């Protein structure tokens, strides 16, 4: 029998027992809806976690530090470190910036400050933010704007600090505040002999006025996610402030480099899959390099297992619904026993009968799948709505915890059809195997 005739006859048969077939289809739809709702929750949570992590800027970054000198293992009592590590200085920064797929290299400049606003002091930590951080998405949805330029005298406040300063944090945007910080100043030329330059420096307090341009929820994580800064300023500006850094004392003692060295550098890569090769190259250059690629892989694995379990639980309802298909089709065989006999007497092959039942099962699966996806999508929206009502009640920003991507729509409908066809195997085989003589005698 040709496909179109098969479809017409199957459609006619399904319409004949409309109520029963509709209820069976509804059962499949509920099963698919359960599956879609579960998976949409899993995928939504994964997207939420991935998005949040991506906003931290950790997954397209390699964190570089100077290789530590190694202790003398031949003599355990001697714990002095030996070797001369490659300094992480400006030259190294330029070298790293020239690597393929590297879009930016910047130091982690982080220093203690005291903010003065309306005559009140607020001690905290400041951090320099590279312009490339803007593309991470960490600043999406912030109140206010990103820095107008790489060295603009502007600041972005973390929301908790802003709340500490004002009861109306948003009102701080556009206002000026004073930053007090410790500046490293080299000692004047002329050492003890009056000829050589001095390697020492002094630390003097300095002030800088900054205009608040934005308020952000959290600081994008820096190297190793350490040091939650509450005031962010443009990286170039932070560098020109010449603030005292933790590495200063070490540089002074070692005197290994004429210029200033960095405690760590963040190397941004244009594509997360290329992080690994960049990381390996940096290690070959003689630096310590670390990325969160492995951590992200583990996270992906966790969510895959999570989705798998959600899918299994969601599929249980579909399996139950498939029993409904078997029941419906077996009933149809009993009711249409004589009709099957007539079909065979008129020239239908066993294969034709089997195909007819498969098409009926598949049609119920298709319709159930389509309705199920719609219902599952609605359930997902209901979960989102309920979640956001709850979050708003706790003064938290709205999020989306469910997602129904197109691949899920297609897969759910395909899965529904496959399960329905599998459920149709037994009834279809039973119908095809009917003895036409017996079937024609059936009243």
């Amino acid at each position, binding site marked *: *029998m*040709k496909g*179109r*005739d098969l479809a017409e*006859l199957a459609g*006619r048969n399904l319409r*004949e027992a409309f109520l029963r077939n509709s209820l069976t289809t509804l059962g499949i739809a509920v099963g698919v809806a359960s599956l879609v709702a579960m998976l949409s929750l899993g995928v939504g949570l994964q997207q939420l976690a991935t998005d949040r992590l991506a906003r931290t800027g950790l997954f397209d970054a390699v964190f570089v530090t100077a290789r530590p000198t190694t202790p003398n293992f031949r003599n355990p009592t001697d714990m002095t470190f030996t070797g001369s590590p490659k300094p992480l200085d400006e030259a190294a920064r330029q070298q790293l910036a020239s690597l393929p797929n590297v879009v930016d290299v910047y130091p982690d400049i982080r220093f203690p400050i005291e903010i003065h606003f309306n005559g009140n002091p607020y001690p905290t930590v400041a951090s320099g933010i590279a312009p490339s951080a803007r593309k991470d998405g960490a600043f999406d949805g912030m109140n206010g704007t990103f820095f107008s330029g790489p060295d603009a005298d502007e600041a972005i406040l973390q929301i908790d600090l802003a709340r500490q300063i004002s009861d109306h944090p948003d009102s701080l945007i556009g206002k000026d505040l004073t930053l007090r910080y410790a500046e490293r100043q080299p000692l004047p030329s002329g050492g003890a002999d009056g000829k050589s330059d001095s390697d020492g420096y002094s630390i003097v307090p300095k002030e800088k006025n900054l205009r608040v341009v934005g308020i952000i929820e959290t600081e994008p994580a820096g190297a190793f996610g350490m040091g939650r800064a509450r005031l962010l300023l443009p990286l170039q500006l932070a560098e020109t402030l010449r603030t005292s850094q933790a590495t200063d004392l070490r540089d002074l003692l070692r005197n290994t480099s004429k210029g200033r060295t960095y405690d760590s550098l963040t190397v941004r890569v244009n594509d997360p899959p290329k992080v690994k090769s960049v990381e390996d190259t940096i290690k070959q250059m003689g630096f310590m390099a670390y990325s969160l690629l492995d951590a992200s892989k583990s996270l992906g694995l966790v969510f895959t297992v999570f989705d798998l379990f959600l899918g299994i639980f969601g599929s249980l309802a579909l399996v139950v619904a498939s029993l409904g298909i078997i029941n419906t089709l077996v009933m149809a065989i009993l009711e249409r026993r*004589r*009709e099957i*006999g*007539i*079909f*065979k*007497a*008129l*020239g*239908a*092959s*066993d*294969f*034709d009968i089997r195909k007819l039942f498969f098409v009926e099962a598949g049609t119920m699966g298709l319709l159930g799948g389509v309705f199920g996806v719609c219902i599952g999508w609605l359930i997902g929206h209901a979960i989102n709505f309920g979640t956001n009502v709850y979050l708003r009640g706790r003064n938290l920003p709205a999020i989306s915890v469910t997602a129904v991507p197109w691949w899920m729509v297609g897969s759910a409908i395909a899965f529904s059809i496959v399960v329905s066809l599998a459920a149709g195997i037994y009834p279809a085989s039973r119908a095809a195997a009917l*003895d*036409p*003589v017996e079937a*024609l005698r059936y009243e």
Partner: protein
Amino acid sequence: MTTEHHLAVRADRVTRHYQMGEAIVRAVEDVSLDIQTGEFVALLGSSGSGKSTLLNLMAGLDRPTSGAIFAQDRNLAEMSSEELARHRSHTIGIVFQAFNLLPRMTLEENVELPLRLAETDREARHSRVREAIERVRLSARLSHRPSELSGGEQQRTAIARALVNRPSILLADEPTGNLDSATGDEIMNLLSEINESGVTIIMVTHERPRAERFAHRMVTMSDGKVVSDGGRA
């Protein structure tokens, strides 16, 4: 074994036994029968004589326990179920006592059904259906459902359905069994017309007088065996 070309159907020592619990029912026992192309053969016998079983074997709806049935030189006993389905679709047409029309289909749709099963092109179907329906003189009832037709009209519809694939053999199992005398005669006249057009007809009946009026040859069965085989009296 080969058959001659003028034979429409040949039964060669056909046996059909059924297992009914512990007992074996010998429905057809060692029957040999040659039916010529264009013949109108009546299979007579009382209830349980095996005539319907023999007809089912000729239709390919059933398989013999032993022996062979040839239709158009091909042994039905050796055919696969797919080949038997093709045999039922293309070589034979079947008419039943109970009409066996599909109640939810119209007359036209019932007649079209064998064409769907034979995968006939849609363009050719319409004319084939109209031709078959005109042959049984039911053109005015195309859109009627079986429940809206009389018994005679239903049987004529069943005959149209059996003829729509232009078979060379028409098998009729008690075609007048559910009809009154006058309507039965109408149907028999129709079958005669069809036979005159060259279609071989093998008809199971227990109505000897009607068989004597219309059939060329009468084969009488009893207890699964052919007990007499001859022309009209």
